[in-house]
């Protein structure tokens, strides 16, 4: 299942490290990664594949949300289909 992870918040050191470490621990493959500053907000978008993951998407999301709280950023995980359906015909 291809899933989009978005990380938004104030830029600081270690955001990418923490998030990718978490994904590595769960066995999630990162397929693409894109990082930008939009209106002073750090925005990172990752395309990941949950197919080979060791844990359920609920557990991964819970873990990511915990990290988000620790480092003060919003982390979301959404099935890629939602964006394809809304923005592509």
């Amino acid at each position, binding site marked *: 299942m291809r899933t989009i992870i978005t990380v938004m918040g104030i830029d600081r050191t270690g955001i990418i490290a923490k998030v990718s470490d978490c994904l590595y621990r769960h066995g999630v493959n990162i397929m693409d990664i894109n990082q930008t500053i939009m209106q002073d907000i750090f925005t990172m978008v990752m*395309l990941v594949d949950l197919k080979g993951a060791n844990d359920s998407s609920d557990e991964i999301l819970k873990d990511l949300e915990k990290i988000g709280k620790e480092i003060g950023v919003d982390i979301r995980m959404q099935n890629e*289909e*939602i964006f394809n*359906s809304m*923005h592509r015909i």
Partner: protein
Amino acid sequence: MINTREITETIKMIDDQHLDVRTITMGISLLDCIDSDANKACQKIYDKITGYAKDLVKTGEEISRQYGIPIINKRISVTPISLIAGASDAKDYVCFAKTLNKAAIETGVNFIGGFSALVHKGFAKSDEILINSIPEALATTERVCSSVGVATTKAGINMDAVKLMGETVVKTAQLTKDSDSLGCAKLVIFANAVEDNPFMAGAFHGVGEGDAVINVGVSGPGVVKSALEKVKGCDFGTVAETIKKTAFKITRMGQLVAQEASRRLNVPFGIVDLSLAPTPEIGDSVAYILEEMGLEKCGTHGTTAALALLNDAVKKGGVMASSYVGGLSGAFIPVSEDAGMIAAAGCGALTLDKLEAMTCVCSVGLDMIAIPGDTPASTISAIIADEMAIGMINQKTTAVRVVPVIGKGVGETVEFGGLLGYAPIMPVHGYSSQEFVDRGGRIPAPIHSLKN
């Protein structure tokens, strides 16, 4: 890969503009639960609903988590109970309502619709029993919703039913007066009732439907308002185009959720209802969309035209985004459930007469309007008759959901709570319609119903 701008746009829609899927509603046929013994029928109904819908709430929550889309309500609609209970020996149908309520609690849905009868041309015995049971059914249950179809373009208006429903609304208000006549918020009177509406309180599972079906209602007034903020001062062609594009995106999301729910629950997908359904939260209002078009307050001159454009553009944008569109599809204008409508009614800009005019061009009708508790039943019947006439002549669904708040009058406010919101009590005309309502009989179907 989808670009960052598109992803953040979707996230903003959800976070800041209240984009959500308003309801996943499972329609369940109860035709195979008919039994001459009412107790046996109730047991069959309970077993069927709790069997079919046992995973509905859980599945809705899973989809919500995996796609990051709030899915606000999970609900059930069933075959009109007058058809199911008619073969039984029951003298009233309150026991059926209690069974539905119990099944709703067991499955975890917040509303179950279908304590209903369709009497647009006449009453069967079971229809009369059902309608007479409505006040007690709504007073003694929490999650059951009731609707009665009293008119269609094909059949005309059953004025005996209109009279009876005015009285039923008053009785329901009296029996639930301790909770500000809340029972009436769960009772809708329809013209041209639709069989696949996922929205409450008017949802029921039509007899033309299959054994079970998944219908989804989308929402998103805040997203439309926000899009219109970016085209301030532009002409109406631009306004319509902007609404269409936004409605397309909203509906595609609804279509995705509907298909996914249908697949996971192994129940066929029915329709997506393209309605802009407001909530009392700031930023989730249909009235504010109309005001964004340039009206100082919703209800002033120009409101009907603005709503007509909105309603039409929502359909045009949405219809391409879904393979099957149905239900009510359009813009809802429930007063108590829309912060902008509440404000407009509160300052006197929005009146009952203007709301009636707006129902000619919106998707439903006079919805969630609080009126004085001493309003005579005949006046409520006449309000219903006017609204049914609009539906009948214009070949559209119209509905009446008014709440005569016992013990309260104009100038006071009533609080229904939650999604049902709050509302100032609006004045009705003081002149009598009693003799008109007492005539009874049937208003014939209009000439344009003769299409065959």
